[in-house]
């Protein structure tokens, strides 16, 4: 087995004058749940297409499971599962037939395929409705089935492109639990793209942030929080006017300032002190009752990185 599940070196892809992916160099160890975070149009889907050898790189190179994407596309696809931008389900077919088709495509023996279909559909609570045409299902059920599909043949590497996009919070949380359970039991490497930071924080052991094709940061969620997000200060009180927020945002030590549920939230750059800011708030007519400091969330790290790159 390769010592890395994925390794890219200066991977670049242009479409006309647009650099969809710009000098991307990442390494993903086997067994990791790798979160690839970025806003819409950041280059996440392009990266997956390149890694699956569905499109060719303009320059740079990539190895997936030890195979070069330029020369061993078929070998890579045989060892990977992929849930891409769309669910990819054949809606006229039943859930069972959808899985059977992709199981046969993965050359699974019939007995193993039957058992695996039962295992996955039972785990996801879909077994009783396996004979129904998928078109009759809710979006959440379809998405569960769509996640079962790439896991079917127990691939070494699974690509999941925004698997919870478009789902309501309850369905998304349920799907995340299912995904975490399945991934843990199977031991596959997972390459997960998302712009849902809570999802990444919950599932991923390693995270990379990308924007306009460029890699901004990579590390474990804890490392990123410590490195890029600085500290989060929550101030309870009142008088948090727009003018005060503008004054705070102009401070060099402040990455973000906003009001959330009546509390003033400040995201500070590393090493910044809260005291001068509290003084500023009071001077500008704000009232401070309580100050609480802690580490920022991954979402705040992400937003800070996005702001810095503007």
């Amino acid at each position, binding site marked *: 087995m390769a010592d890395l599940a994925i390794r890219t070196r200066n991977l670049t892809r242009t479409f006309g004058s647009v650099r969809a992916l710009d000098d991307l160099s990442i390494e993903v160890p086997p067994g990791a749940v790798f979160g690839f975070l970025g806003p819409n149009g950041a280059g996440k889907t392009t990266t997956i297409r390149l890694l699956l*050898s569905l499109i060719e790189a303009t320059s740079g190179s990539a190895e997936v499971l030890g195979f070069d994407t330029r020369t061993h596309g078929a070998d890579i696809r*045989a060892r990977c599962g992929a849930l*891409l931008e769309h*669910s990819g389900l054949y809606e*006229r077919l039943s859930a069972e037939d959808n899985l059977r088709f992709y199981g046969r495509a993965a*050359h699974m023996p019939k007995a193993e395929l039957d058992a695996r279909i039962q295992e996955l559909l039972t785990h996801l609570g879909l077994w009783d409705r396996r004979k129904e045409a998928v078109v009759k299902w809710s979006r959440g059920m379809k998405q569960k089935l769509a996640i079962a599909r790439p896991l079917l043949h127990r691939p070494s590497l699974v690509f999941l492109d925004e698997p919870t996009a478009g789902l309501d919070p309850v369905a998304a949380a349920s799907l995340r639990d299912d995904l975490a359970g399945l991934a843990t039991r199977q031991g596959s490497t997972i390459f997960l793209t998302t712009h849902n930071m809570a999802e990444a924080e919950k599932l991923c052991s390693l995270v990379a942030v990308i924007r306009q094709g460029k890699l901004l940061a990579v590390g474990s969620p804890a490392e990123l929080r410590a490195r890029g997000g600085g500290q989060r200060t929550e101030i309870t009180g009142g008088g948090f006017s727009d003018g005060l927020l503008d004054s705070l945002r102009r401070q060099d030590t402040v990455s973000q300032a906003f009001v959330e549920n009546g509390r003033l939230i400040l995201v500070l750059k590393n090493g910044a002190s809260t005291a001068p800011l509290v003084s500023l708030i009071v001077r500008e007519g704000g009232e401070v009752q309580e100050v609480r400091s802690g580490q920022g969330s991954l979402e705040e790290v992400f937003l800070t990185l996005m702001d810095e790159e503007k």
Partner: protein
Amino acid sequence: MHTDFMTVFWKEWKEILLQRSAGGGGARQPLIFIALLGIFVPWRMGPQRFFNPAQLLVFTFLSAIVVTAVIADAFAGERERHTLETLLASRMSDRAILFGKIAAAIAYGWMIAIACAVVGTITVNVSHREDGFMFYRDTASWIILLIGPPLVAGAVATGGVLISLRAATVRQAQQTLGIGFMIIVVGMIFGSSSLPADWRAWLGRVLVEWSLTEIVLVAAAGILAVDLALLMAGMARFQRSKLVLD
């Protein structure tokens, strides 16, 4: 390759049948063909005309029409329903995907043609039961019945897949294919009259001097050559990177 081909064929065949049985005009179309060309027409025309080899050309033509409706969906439908990229991300080879889709369409067209011929034979035999059992007896008829529909349907399927590979929607593929089909048919009908006089004379001599079986075999070889040329063009056009980005 064989396993992948059969997998694609199995999926396509299921989708074709489910599409045809899912209600709407598509579900009725094969039944209308069978009722019209398998019951009504044979019942009216009687055994002598029905068991004429020329009548089998109708079934051959029918298979081509049926395939036109199915093959447009092959790639354009996958693209429209957002299943194409997932299919391309599977381990299956380009050829297995392409050949499986073409073969399923041809098999469907062939099945409808054979169903019309079988139902027609039953209709004629029932309506003229006093004449005893009747069936196709000459070699040319059997050749047309067995290889005519797959060869002609094959030309439509391989040509259609070229269009479907690039079409954005099924409707666009169907329209392009329909127009192309009409141009070829009209061209064949009116094109023969614009041939040089000595060519027409040669063609006339061939039709008189050659046996029907020989004419059928030569025509079959010609259509097979067209099928293979279109199939190779389809293989050249099937490029994952272009299909993903189109």
